[in-house]
Structures are given as C-alpha cells and as structure tokens.
C-alpha cells in the first residue's frame, strides 16, 4: 500500500519536472535567442537550423548601437527618472503609510478611502486631462512630468500600510515611552522592519518606471528626452531590418532590470506575501 503510494508519488513528480522544464525552456529561450542574435550579422540572424553560438562573434553590434542611436542618452534619462521616482515613492509612501497604520487623526479613514478608491481606477482613464493639466503647467516635454506621474501612487501607500499594520502597536508604544518622536519611530523602527515591503516597492516602482511606455510616449516627444523604451521603439521602427543591432539594443535595455531584479528578488515573494493579498 505504502509502496504503491510512493510509486504514484514518484510518477507524479516526474510529470511535474517534465512540465516545469518545458515551461522553463519556453520562458528562457527568447532571451537566449536575443543574446545569440545580438552577436550576429543581420544575414545570419534568421539562418535555419539555428546556430546558437555564431562562428564569428560580432562585438561590433554592441559598439554600433551607441552611435546609430543616442542609446547612452536614453539610458541616462531612464536611470535618472527611475531612481528619482523610486526614491520619492519609497520616501513619501512609507511616510504616509506610517500615519495611516499607526497614528490616529481626524479624516484618516476618509483620506485612506480616497487612496483605496483610486487604486482601481486605470491611469488610462484620466491620462488625457492629466496631460492637459501638465501642459498648462508647462511640464510637457519635461522629465518632471514623468516624475509627478509616477512618484505618488496609491499602490505604494497601500502596500506599505498593509505591511506596517502587521507590526505590533506595542513596539511603537514602547518606542514612544522610550522618548522617540513619531519621526524617530518611523526612521529607526518602521523603516528597518519593513525591508521586505520596501524592496517589493522598489522592484515595482523601478521596473514600472524603467519599462513605462505610454507615459513617456505622451510626454516626451523630443529625442534628447526620450527613455530607453520609446527610444528603442523608435530605433526598431526606423531600422527594422537591422536585426543584430535591434537585439543588441534590447539586451542592453534588459540588463539593468535584470540586475535590480536578481539583487532584490529574495525579498520579493516575501514582500508580496506580506503586502496582505488576503486584504
């Protein structure tokens, strides 16, 4: 009886492995193809059967992309925007979330409700009036527009507040008795304790800003202001037959996100779990 159960279990596990490995291959192959093609001449990119490691590794693609398009400018713009937005988001969200989770004040529920109520409203539903407003403020074709657009999200406040609610009130009370001010509690107690939530928010914000497409497309029409996404898109549509170069530029655009992701992913599952999906 026990033996047959074990056999059943082993069979099931084999199936699980086969399924998982198949999915893993599907998930990873596009990147390998991208990487491999980025080292090829245009004429070799689509050779079939596929050559995974080209005989002549063409580093030249990675030299040419910097001169064919202002890729350096695009990357600098994107780094600048992503870093500023992420810092602002972390700072203001965790600050506001502390008040919502641990302080009592008049209008708390109403204010929090205004965040919650907007969390589900798609940005696309109010992007047009937002654009008109920004234009009136003279922010069209400035990076400030993108910063204002991304830095104050309801999502960030919600995520941090959920996490802070899991921290016992007694800890804050003890700190208060020890003479810490509310700002001190936030800085010395809440911030260090909320590292998982902060790294979740960092990943989300950084990656959202790095990968944002529609926002920069609306606001940044000058080439020197463009981010990597719309810059890359411009390049792909202008030189659609430069397969090798397109793949090299794509690899370059993915690397920073990969680094951030690998550096912080340990905290990620933990962060998502503690952000209180169950409400």
């Amino acid at each position, binding site marked *: 009886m026990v033996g047959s159960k074990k056999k059943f279990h082993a069979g099931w596990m084999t199936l699980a492995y086969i*399924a*998982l490995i198949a999915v893993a291959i599907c998930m990873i192959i596009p990147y390998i193809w991208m990487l491999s093609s980025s080292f090829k001449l245009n004429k070799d990119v689509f050779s*079939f059967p596929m050559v995974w490691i080209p005989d002549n590794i063409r580093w030249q693609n990675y030299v040419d992309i910097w001169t064919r398009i202002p890729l350096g400018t695009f990357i600098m713009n994107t780094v600048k925007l992503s870093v500023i937005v992420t810092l602002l988001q972390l700072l203001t969200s965790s600050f506001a979330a502390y*008040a919502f989770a641990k302080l009592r004040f008049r209008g708390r529920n109403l204010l929090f409700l205004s965040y919650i109520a907007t969390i589900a*409203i798609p940005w696309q539903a109010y992007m047009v009036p*937002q654009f008109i407003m920004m234009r009136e403020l003279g922010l069209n074709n400035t990076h400030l527009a993108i910063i204002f657009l991304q830095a104050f999200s309801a999502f960030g406040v919600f995520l941090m507040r959920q996490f802070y609610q899991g921290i016992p009130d007694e800890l804050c009370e003890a700190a208060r008795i020890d003479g810490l001010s509310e700002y001190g509690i936030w800085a010395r107690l809440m911030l260090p304790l909320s590292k998982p939530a902060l790294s979740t928010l960092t990943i989300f914000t950084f990656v959202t800003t790095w990968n944002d*497409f529609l926002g920069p497309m609306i606001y940044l029409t000058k080439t020197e202001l463009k981010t990597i996404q719309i810059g890359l898109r411009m390049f792909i549509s202008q030189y659609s037959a430069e397969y090798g170069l397109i793949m090299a530029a794509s690899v370059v655009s993915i690397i920073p996100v990969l680094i951030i992701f690998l550096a912080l992913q340990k905290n990620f599952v933990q962060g998502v779990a503690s952000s209180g999906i169950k409400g």
Partner: protein
Amino acid sequence: MQKETTLATGKSNKPFITRGMKDHLVAYSFIAPNFIGFALFTLVPMIFAIILAFVKWDGSNPMNYVGIDNFIRLIKDTTFHKALWNTVVYTIGVVPLTMACALALAILLNQKIVGRNFMRTAFFFPYVASLVAVAAVWNFIFSPTMGPINNLLHTITGIPIEDLPRWAADKDWAMFTVILFTVWKNMGYYMVIYLAGLQGVNPELYEAAELDGANGWKRFTNVTIPQLAPTTFFVLMILVINSFKVYDIFINLFAGADNQLNDSTRVLVYQIYNTAFRSLDYGYANAMALVLFLIVMGVTIVQFRGEKRYGQ
C-alpha cells in the same frame, strides 16, 4: 491608541486638546508629501476627466458643453465598437489562461523541487523585462517566413511556410498571438501571488484531509481551491483590469513606425490615445475613457462582492 499616547506623555502639563492637535499635525505632516502629489496629479485629473467627457474641445479653442453628445457618438461609432470588442476578446482569452497557468505553476513550485528558486526567477522575469525588447524578439521568432517557429513547424509538419499561420501579421491569428504573448509575459507575476497564497494555507488542513482519506485531487478541490479563493479573486480582479488597460503590448507587437493599429488589433486605450493626441478631440476621448472607467469599476464592484461572500 491615542488614549495611551496621551497617558504615556501625561507628564506634560499641557491640556489634552493641544496635545491632540499636535498629534494631528504630526500625522498630517506624514501624509502631506504623498497626498499633495497624489491629489494634484491623480485626484484633480480624475475630476477633470468627468467634466471633459461632456464637452467638445480641441485644446486651444474654447470648450463647448455638449451634454451627452459624446456618448451618443460612441453608440454609433463602429470603430470604437471594434476596439471595445477586441479588448473584450483579448480579456476573455488572457484571463482564464493566465490564471490556470499561474495556479498550476505555483502548485508545482510549492513542492520540494530541485531548482525551485531558479524556476521562480525564470518564470517571473518576463513580467519585469522590457516589453519593447521582448516584443521585438517575439516578432522575430514568430516572423512568418524567416522566423524559427515557422521554420520549425515547416520542418516537423512539412506544411509549406506560406500556408502556416502568419502570427502577428495575420488578422485571424493576431489575437491568438497577442494572448499567447501576454500569458507568457505576465503569468509569472500571478504565479508569485498564488505562491504567496499557498504559503498561507494551513498545513493542518491537508493533514486532516489526508487522514480522512482524501486523494490528491480531492485535497486540491476541497482544501487548496477554497483556501485560495481570496487570492483567486485578487488575481482575477487585477487580470481583468490589466487586460482592459492594454495598449503597449498591441503597439509593440503590431504597429509600424506610425504607431497605428488596424481594425483587427485596435483596443480601447489605443482608441482613447488616438482620439486625444492625434485627432485632438479631447472631449470625445474622455467619453471613451469614462467607458473604460465604468467597465473597470463594474468589475471591481462585482469582485469585491464576491470576495465578501467567498472570502470567509
């Protein structure tokens, strides 16, 4: 809590009301940096959006109040209908497929599997990888005549390349291609949410079910599924909303240098974008945006009700 705060600092001789006011000011100072930005760039445009839906405006000439004319136009606008329909078809394709894949992967990766962390990372990564880059790779891989997929299919099946699906370039296959791409790109994210949900399931429930003689499938339907109901509602909500907001995936898979989509691939947000920023028909674009808002709100309300019912 406030009471305790007051007690704890009761040594000061100041009257309670001042103390309370100071507490309030401290609290507001925590909220202010975020709330000011949030109010200015989110709340105000949202209110402005409702007004704009009832005017005709090109952005430079004076606004004209036109009542519900924009909405009457919507009812007759066949291009808009097509965009709405495509969005609905896309949503119907993406949502169940993503949920099924995400849940299956989460359950598999919740077992003691060798290489579990690597796989989690690999499955999640497409969600964060630059869309423009991965869409470019997909377009190359699924290229109708040159791409490795069709060449491979040709080699395996012997069907001439001309008769194979033209994927993104084919109006009958375009929707299938974009659904497949979206599932590939996003399922890892929902898998992580499901994994988090699975970790919250009390292991004693499985032990109890096993003692009662429940087999694997029974444990799945009687323990896992009900225990995951709140997670599932959350995933469903986010998925439906995200599918209705789609724009960038379609542009990057289908559009040329002019960023235009045709009748078989145009979606709701594309229509809003084009009406506002190309035709400068701000009022009409906002009427469309209001439709998007109402759809998303409707979904959210239904889901919250469901969550209340099944969540406990």
